[in-house]
């Protein structure tokens, strides 16, 4: 064909039509395929390693844990049909009749192999530390096994719900990086940084599930791009909804916001090598902050004040007097400063990061509010990588933190509130809270729930009195979807992002 003006015009017209039709065809083909706009492409899909929430979400579609949470936030069977505490140190698990993606049955030998991989030195597994109390694994038969712990461990069932504790087919990681799981979907196509396409697993153990013909996951790292993709109809569901967009999504009839206000949270940790060795100064900080301003100005009103420890509403471990302990009380804060010998003011350094706006803005607001009670705060806000490094080295008098708990056992806060644990950037360090470690150990060993409630009441009071942890506010956590997405199961508090039931019954209208 000769390239003249007329032919060029023809080509341009045909190309335009192809582009337009291409879009329509794509829409038609994707009628029952869920398109997810994910905040990050998982760094990799190697199992058991903490690869962040986005990696967990993908993993929860591919794999299953032994136990998980149901929509009411109660422990429920997953691959383990039942479990019982035979002796204080022994737990017996019975597996249900479930199959991996390749059709082979899930057996006790597969669980044993999975546990061995996690416990291996250098595994880098998220559960490596948590598995230390487990001293024995006994295969009883194909579907039964027994776990032995070095001491009574009431938290063991909750441990089995942890993200990244996927049960995989024995030896399957030799042939495929992500192994062979027993979740509702398997990978049909994946291109790093571009997309992951999932197809249904016909061997999934739940009857009539999964309901979707497939799932296409596309990373949208920029939050504005993620929201734009949802608004434009490029995707059906997005995670990590920016708080600045929540109001507009709520008011848009074509979209829906699925959130819990008491999701992940912001808090302060203290470094006891400086002025904050004195608990009165830590308390002064806790009483000198107006937490409603954090919710309103940083999270656009989508969140809740955190005036105590992160205990879910309705939990027997939550007590009203403790939940509202850190009310704004500037006079008390000033009195505490005076008692500690800082009547004329105190100067401290706060470590945060400028890379994430919620950390940066929290630090700026802490600085402004503490100035009102006579504490001068100098900010150190490098990028995230430097901030983690400085935090691990013990830089800063106190630090801004943000996290979501991945299980509802009262012991889940231990890694945040006990400064006697190994010094890492997410918790306070350099001082002791007398009796706290012993109480936490008692709580883990106690099987009787009523006694546990009393023990954790004492734990919480110790933390509040010694202020080893200073809660600031919860930030709303959730998803935004097109209006046609139905039956997205939001779980209480911060569990939703970490529950494999999240997408189980989800369907597209």
């Amino acid at each position, binding site marked *: 064909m000769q390239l003249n003006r007329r032919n060029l015009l023809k080509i341009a017209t045909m190309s335009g039509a192809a582009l337009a039709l291409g879009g329509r065809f794509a829409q038609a083909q994707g009628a029952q395929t869920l398109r997810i706009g994910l905040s990050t492409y998982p760094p990799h899909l190697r199992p058991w390693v903490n690869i962040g929430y986005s990696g967990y979400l993908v993993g929860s579609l591919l794999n299953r844990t032994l136990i998980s949470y149901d929509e009411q936030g109660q422990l429920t069977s997953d691959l383990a049909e039942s479990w019982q505490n035979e002796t204080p140190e022994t737990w017996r698990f019975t597996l249900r009749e479930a199959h991996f993606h390749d059709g082979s049955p899930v057996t006790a030998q597969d669980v044993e192999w999975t546990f061995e991989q996690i416990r291996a030195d250098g595994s880098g597994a998220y559960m490596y530390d948590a598995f230390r109390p487990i001293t024995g694994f006994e295969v009883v038969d194909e579907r039964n096994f027994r776990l032995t712990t070095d001491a009574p461990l009431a938290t063991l069932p909750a441990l089995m719900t942890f993200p990244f504790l996927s049960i995989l087919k024995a030896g399957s990681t030799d042939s495929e990086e992500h192994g062979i799981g027993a979740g509702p979907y398997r990978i049909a196509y994946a291109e790093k940084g571009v997309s992951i396409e999932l197809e249904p697993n016909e061997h999934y153990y739940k009857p009539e599930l999964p309901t979707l013909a497939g799932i296409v996951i596309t990373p949208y790292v920029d939050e504005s*791009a993620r929201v734009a993709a949802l608004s434009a109809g490029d995707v059906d569901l997005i995670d990590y909804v920016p708080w600045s967009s929540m109001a507009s999504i709520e008011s848009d009839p074509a979209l829906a916001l699925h959130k819990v206000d008491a999701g992940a949270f912001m808090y302060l940790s203290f470094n006891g090598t400086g002025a904050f060795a004195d608990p009165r100064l830590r308390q002064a900080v806790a009483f000198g902050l107006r937490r409603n301003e954090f919710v309103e100005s940083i999270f656009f009103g989508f969140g809740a004040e955190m005036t105590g420890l992160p205990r879910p509403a309705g939990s027997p471990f939550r007590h009203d007097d403790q939940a509202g302990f850190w009310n704004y009380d500037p006079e008390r804060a000033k009195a505490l400063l005076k008692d500690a010998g800082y009547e004329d003011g105190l100067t401290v350094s706060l470590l945060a990061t400028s890379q994430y706006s919620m950390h940066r803005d929290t630090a700026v607001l802490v600085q402004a509010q503490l100035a009102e009670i006579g504490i001068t705060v100098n900010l150190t806000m490098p990028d995230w990588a430097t901030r983690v490094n400085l935090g691990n080295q013990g830089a800063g008098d106190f630090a801004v*933190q943000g996290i979501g708990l991945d299980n509802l056992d009262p012991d889940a806060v231990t890694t945040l509130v006990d400064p006697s644990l190994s010094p890492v950037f997410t*918790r306070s360090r350099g001082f002791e809270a007398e009796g706290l470690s012993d109480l936490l150990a008692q709580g883990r060993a106690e099987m009787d729930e009523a006694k546990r409630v009393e023990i954790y009441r004492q734990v919480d009071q110790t933390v509040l009195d010694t202020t080893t942890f200073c809660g600031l506010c919860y930030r709303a956590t959730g998803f935004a979807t097109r209006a046609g997405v139905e039956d997205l199961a939001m779980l209480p508090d911060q569990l939703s992002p970490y529950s494999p039931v999240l997408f189980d019954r989800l369907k597209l209208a």
Partner: protein
Amino acid sequence: MGWFVRRVIQSLFMLWVVVSLVFLSIHFVPGDPAELLLSQDGGAPDPLMVEMLREQLGLNRPLVEQYAHNVAGIMRGDLGTSMVDGSSVSAEVMRRLPRTLELIAAAGILSLLIGIPAGVLSALRPRGRFSRGAALAAGTAQSVPVFVLGTLLVILFAQVLGWLPAGGFTPFSRDPGKHLQLLILPAATIAIGLSAIVFRITRASMLDVLPLDFIRTARAKGVPARRVVIRHALRNALMPVITVFALQLGGLLAGTVLVETVFNWPGLSGMLVAGVNARDYPVVTGVLVVVSAFYIGLNLLVDIIYGITDPRVRK
């Protein structure tokens, strides 16, 4: 011949300097890849686990040893493996480089198609309405940051009109139509600013050429006006346009990060930013070495062409 060999050796020396500077700077920036790998979404690994991972990744080896290993690998054409996912950096660079080059090429062509005709028309009637309007538009296009422009285009074409997807990437081999659809907005975002530059340079260059004697002669000989403008004036005015255009395109190779972010285009810039954030040393070094080699190679090529066409350069 000696001059050519010297230039090649100089280029290799420059590449070695770049590799060394990149290696040293990324290693001296605070931040530990092992800590970051195990600290996703607020995870707080035990220091013992971090130490085990550092050992696995070879981060405990002396810096000199790591440097020698790095340089030896690059000399073999092996850019190493990512510390985050263990994948080959060379393979990932080769997967992403064509995407960025495609984006730059599409933007470049679009900017030439807009900038050159507009510049020529504007130069023919420098005080006309079109010229004044085009100058205003060019000024605006150059002053609006690309991420603002990109966002505006997304709002207009994806969210309001619904003509194009808001962003993303589909390989051409999987769906050519979708691939081209997804290319339009990011390419247009880069092209708008770039076409303003092309417009200004074309206009200025044409204004320099149009009053020259040979143009007047051509007109006096009765050559048609369109032929005078295109064959005689524009041809002579294009040299500075090409020079500036090439420099701009070169700068885009690692400079499309904002556009890649706004439109979710998985190119080389995004890989570099992710590598820096994760302190993934092999990825950062690999991307920068490839980009530098690209520049140095282009410069070497230009120098060699100058040397061939103008022997005085070789003295």
